[in-house]
């Protein structure tokens, strides 16, 4: 059982659940997010990972994601309750009106300079994000969501577990310092696990960064590594397609994205191994 307030920058949320796996997930991945001083403070989301009701509760136990007492999507098997929390929280951040432009992208930073890696699923951004974090010492802002503040054009960290799928699990599991959580089989995304963000990234969870580089990664088995610089207008279009709330953000989102790109250089890279990808990133950011 868990009923607590979590500060997971840039939001504060209340999390309730009867599942031990959810409690264990919070203990493993958010050891410093429970902040008793925030009890009674404003919460952005009231999340309840509940047990499914009715006959199913006995025949095939399920976990429901409840947000402010509503159920925005279908339940999952109870064994995936903790993963449901992660996916549901992604949905909250991407769709609830928080005033940020939210883009489907991995973000890492060095010395306040951020590297944004937008990508369609399967492009390899989570694996590359984990490699930069664990092998190259970049600070993890997020492996999934670039959270852009329109007023400042700065990126807010959301250092949560890196979601790893299928073949990337063994790759990232071998990285020094990587701590993986339970493996979830047969999810809609295949076999899934999470890698804990380094404590250094969590400790700097309130420190924003400015976008300096945008890289569109593309994992292509057998391909020769290549890197091409692209214009910011082209990058704009590609990023806009990966934004969850661009339509709702309207002109504010347009100017925010323009401001983000204004100080950035943009590239697309193709690679066939993590090592080659890291070499390309080194060449871009070096």
């Amino acid at each position, binding site marked *: 059982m868990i009923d607590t307030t979590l500060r997971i920058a840039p939001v504060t949320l209340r999390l309730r659940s009867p599942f031990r796996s959810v409690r264990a997930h919070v203990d493993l991945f958010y050891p410093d997010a429970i902040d008793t001083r925030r009890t009674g403070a404003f919460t952005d989301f009231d999340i309840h990972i509940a047990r499914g009701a009715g006959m199913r509760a006995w025949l095939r136990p399920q976990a429901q994601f409840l947000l402010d007492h509503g159920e925005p999507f279908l339940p999952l098997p109870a064994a995936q309750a903790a993963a449901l929390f992660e996916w549901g929280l992604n949905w909250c951040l991407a769709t609830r009106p928080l005033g940020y432009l939210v883009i489907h992208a991995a973000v890492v930073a060095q010395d306040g300079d951020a590297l944004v890696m937008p990508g369609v699923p399967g492009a390899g951004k989570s694996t590359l994000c984990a490699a930069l974090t664990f092998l190259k010492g970049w600070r993890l802002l997020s492996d999934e969501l670039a959270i852009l503040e329109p007023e400042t054009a700065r990126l807010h960290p959301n250092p949560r577990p890196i979601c790893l799928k299928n073949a990337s699990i063994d790759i990232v599991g071998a990285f020094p310092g990587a701590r993986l959580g339970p493996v979830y089989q047969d999810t809609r995304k295949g076999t899934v696990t999470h890698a804990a963000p380094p404590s250094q990234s969590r400790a700097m969870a309130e420190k924003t960064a400015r976008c300096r580089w945008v890289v569109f990664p593309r994992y292509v088995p057998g391909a020769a590594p290549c890197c091409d610089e692209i*214009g*910011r*207008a*082209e990058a*704009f*279009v590609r990023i*806009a397609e990966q934004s969850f709330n*661009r*339509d709702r953000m*309207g*002109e504010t989102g*347009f*100017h925010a994205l*323009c401001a983000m*790109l*204004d100080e950035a250089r943009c590239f697309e890279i193709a690679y066939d191994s993590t090592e080659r990808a890291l070499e390309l990133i080194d060449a871009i950011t070096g």
Partner: protein
Amino acid sequence: MLQESPIQAYPGRSLALSPAWDGDGAAVVFDRNSGDYWIVSPLAYQVVRRIVATGREGATELVQHLTDGKTSATDAETVVIGVIRELVQREILTDA
């Protein structure tokens, strides 16, 4: 030829512009009302920026402004007229 009536934003549009991003070869025009956006060439960007600034402008004056006031039928004028036509065809601007 373009119509004699003024060039202005396509009906219902309220246009905003990205930075010019000189050197990139393209910039972005955004419609506040629909959320649509277009990638445009540097010259098309200048045309739209002029219309955003003035609200509306006669085609002749607009061409003259973008060709540094030269009045003779030059290649530059032809290029500008082509760009304006394309912006009209894309329903970013109108000459109707």
